[in-house]
């Protein structure tokens, strides 16, 4: 048997040369296109998110001018070749402001997703493993969850000055309960798994169980949840800025641009519409990505809201 394999191997190699010419290109195309076909939501959402990240990163090189430069003689110009998206009532270029606004949006959504995930992970793990703390932590989370997230963020922002850091903190606090509950539910269901029982029986210490058995299983649901947190954070940030409780007016954020266009929107609707389109498209992209990831990774624990 083994002799036969050895003797036929050279024949196979001799017969092989035709295959590599044909196979690799087909395989590679099947890889990218096949993935896009199998998961259109991830592909479209991911591409749009990537585009927005690139716009945010390269905002200074995309034909923008200083987004805070005032030009009193060129106020409220309609969109034209000079002002692609028009200018606002202080003569600032809206195209530049919208592109720079992508930076604030990007900073806020990634910071909130990261911080809320980390905090939620820690709280959820403690709640799931330290039994006496579970009741207390979950009552506190229930209480925080009964305050509508936007109101909670508004209440926190009312206490502090409007700054990007404070906006991130306020939205993170509003999002933590949901992530904590998710992690806790993952922990509680994993604790009942035979392999965790086996690990405990084998004398594995708790930190090791968390590291080896719990954390890897939280990755999929946490990734999906983080995209929803991202989308939620963007909307809350825009709302906070829009009602005057968010980032200071000197920083161009999409919510701020819309807030400034509010008074004029019936005569100069483009001031409101351009940031609105960017905001909606980005949230849509993140949501598509989240839905696609949820379907692909199939974490049963994640629920929207």
């Amino acid at each position, binding site marked *: 048997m083994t002799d036969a394999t050895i003797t036929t191997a050279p024949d196979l190699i001799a017969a092989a040369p035709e295959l590599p010419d044909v196979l690799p290109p087909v395989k590679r195309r099947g890889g990218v296109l096949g993935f896009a076909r199998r998961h259109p939501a991830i592909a479209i959402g991911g591409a749009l998110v990537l585009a927005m990240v690139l716009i945010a990163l390269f905002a200074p090189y995309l034909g923008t001018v200083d987004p805070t430069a005032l030009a009193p003689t060129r106020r409220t110009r309609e969109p034209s070749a000079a002002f692609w998206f028009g200018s606002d009532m202080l003569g600032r270029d809206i195209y530049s402001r919208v592109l720079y606004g992508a930076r604030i949006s990007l900073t806020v959504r990634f910071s909130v997703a990261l911080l809320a995930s980390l905090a939620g992970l820690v709280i959820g793990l403690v709640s799931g493993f330290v039994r006496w703390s579970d009741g207390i932590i979950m009552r*506190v989370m229930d*209480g925080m969850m009964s305050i509508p997230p936007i109101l909670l963020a*508004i209440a926190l922002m009312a206490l502090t000055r409007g700054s990007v850091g404070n906006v991130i903190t306020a939205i993170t606090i509003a999002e933590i309960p949901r992530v904590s509950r998710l992690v806790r539910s993952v922990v509680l269901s994993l604790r009942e798994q035979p392999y965790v029982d086996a690990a405990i029986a084998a004398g594995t210490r708790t930190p090791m169980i968390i590291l080896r058995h719990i954390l890897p299983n939280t990755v999929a649901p946490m990734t999906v949840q983080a995209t929803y947190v991202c989308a939620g954070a963007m909307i809350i940030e825009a709302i906070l800025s*829009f009602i005057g*409780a968010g980032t200071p007016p000197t920083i161009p954020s999409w919510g701020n641009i819309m807030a400034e266009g509010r008074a004029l929107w019936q005569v100069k609707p483009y001031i409101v*519409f351009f940031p609105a389109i960017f*905001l909606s498209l980005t949230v849509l992209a993140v949501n598509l990505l989240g839905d696609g990831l949820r379907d692909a990774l199939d974490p049963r624990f994640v629920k929207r*809201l």
Partner: protein
Amino acid sequence: MLSYIIRRIVATVPVMVVVALFVFSLLYIAPGDPAAVIAGDQATPDDVARIRMSLGLDRPFLIRFGEWFWQILHGDLGTSIFTNLPVAALIAQRAEPTLSLMAVTLTLAVCVAVPIGVVAAWRADTLIDRVIMAFAVLGFSVPVFVVGYLLAYVFALELDWLPVQGYTPISEGLWPWFQNLILPAVALGCVYIALIARITRATMLEVLQQDYIRTARAKGVGQTGILFVHALKNAAVPIVTVIGIGVALLIGGAVVTETVFAIPGIGRLTVDAILRRDYPVIQGIVLMFSFLYVLVNLAIDLLYTVLDPRIRY
């Protein structure tokens, strides 16, 4: 049954206390010393200390919280720093537009979302289903104020079918009242419709797999009867639960919608209070809305036994 209701009501008490504690801490750590404000610019530190003592501001956190909570239970939400009026009265003045908006939105959302969710489940994986679900994702993604401006631009400014902004009290007639609420309600309802439609579809898909649906079909029940009587009844619990959870979206969205459509409700009161840093007002609004939210979800919990007689406690 009665013991369940009592237990469920008692269980909301700790939640409300946590909410109250959280909201109270907000005011506690809020910048600015009320005693210094009352004492005025010419006051000596001794005067400020005396006023602080007379107001009881020097006492421990928990004692002050207890007294404050006692006042809340008696309907006293404190006094606005800016207008010097009781917060409860300020909220009551502004309650009608906000409650109207929320009621119209809720009705509209349920009437639209449940049927389209049912249709999407019935025609799962067809074009209709795809279109409905695409709209649901869109509804989640386009923020309420963007939808609001878009609707106002198209239906009020361009087509001139509906009023652009404002609010007419219900006492001035049902139609003028309703006319002013259509656009805000649709704008506010988008997310809510998306949420309810998705859960309706998901639950209905599960229910339609059940044996009793096949039995109903075998004994000749029509398609509408199967969908809306046999299936929807059994899908009611998750749908109603999500309707309750979604009230949080309504509350948060109302603040923004009122700003877009210039509706003089609690949302506008909130925005004004933020700009004036009127903490007692913000505190009162957050507290009131949170209690409302807890009570709505308590009511829904109690509804479960009515919706699904199999649920016994």
